[in-house]
């Protein structure tokens, strides 16, 4: 089933087309990688689907309906920005999210916080940038949403925590949700993706099943990425 569909989606910032005529469809039960170099339009695309940017042109459908305030109920989005209040503790962030989202699962949050080596009484202000990044993952993934969008979830994350995050993503994926992950750390992502979408200067250049690409072209996603973007 199509959980997200965009039709000729375009976003212009003055003369510059950040996203250009993108037709992307996300189906339930799949993990997608949105891959492309810096400035290729990954974040802009996600922000439009999350309802944070207004498209210059084109349509977005979430769960079969045109994008509206209701879509936020289905979409759990993690931006690259730090979006927690400084004065809160990790525990307060959990209660804050619970108040905002009906599908927020407090037990899942506790488990994720534990896996990320965080504690409920830690202050946001005193978190290192890596710890703050892990907290964003915990809060985003603790929802039982239909659509997860993670913008650069591995930014600023050390190797050990990287495994914790990847396994959290693997466990979250089920036949009734879809996950879109943007990253330029493709080698780390390679094993967990079903489908890859390559985006360049706002345009979708390749999209397809990761295993089929390996099988038919005999190359890794990283190889293909280099071929397309270099």
């Amino acid at each position, binding site marked *: 089933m199509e959980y997200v569909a965009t039709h000729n989606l375009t976003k212009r910032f003055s003369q510059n087309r950040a996203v250009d005529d993108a037709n992307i469809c996300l189906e339930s039960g799949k*993990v997608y990688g949105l891959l492309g170099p810096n400035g290729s339009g990954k974040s802009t695309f996600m922000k439009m689907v999350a309802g944070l940017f207004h498209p210059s042109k084109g349509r977005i459908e979430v769960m079969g309906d045109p994008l509206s305030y209701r879509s936020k109920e289905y979409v759990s989005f993690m931006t690259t920005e730090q979006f927690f209040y400084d004065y809160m503790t990790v525990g307060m962030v959990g209660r804050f999210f619970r108040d905002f989202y009906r599908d927020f699962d407090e037990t899942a949050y506790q488990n994720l916080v534990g896996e990320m080596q965080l504690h409920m009484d830690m202050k946001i202000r005193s978190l290192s940038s890596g710890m703050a990044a892990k907290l964003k993952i915990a809060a985003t993934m603790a929802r039982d949403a239909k659509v997860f969008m993670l913008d650069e979830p591995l930014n600023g994350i050390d190797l050990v925590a990287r495994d914790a995050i990847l396994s959290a993503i*693997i466990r979250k*994926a089920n036949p009734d949700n879809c996950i879109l992950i943007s990253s330029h750390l493709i080698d780390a992502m390679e*094993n*967990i993706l*079903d489908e890859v979408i390559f985006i360049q200067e706002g345009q979708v250049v390749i999209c397809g099943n990761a295993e089929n690409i*390996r099988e038919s072209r*005999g*190359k890794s996603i990283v190889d293909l990425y280099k071929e397309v973007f270099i």
Partner: protein
Amino acid sequence: MQFNTREPIYLQVIDDIKKRIVTGKIRPGDKLPSTRTLSEEYGINANTAARIYKEMETMELCHTKRGLGTYVNESEEMVTEIKKAMADKYLNRFMDEMLGLGYSIDELIGFIERRRG
């Protein structure tokens, strides 16, 4: 497990499971982990894990009992066959490389003989 990302991941995991069957870490008739556990164990996506069991079924390595899970086929013959196939694969690889270096088959036998002592 470290994957060679140029080959499909599901084939590499199947090879690893086969190796575990040959070395007796998994026995004929054993229940295999759920696709969810498999995906966590290998750090792969759940759809890839599901595909692994589907492909293994077509290869007649395992079967699914509805509602119970996936089991390794109960056949010692199968284990011998997998072992032979793997031996062939490794032997081919060895021969290709050695013949490529310019050694004759007799010389290869000599190498192996000397290793025995």
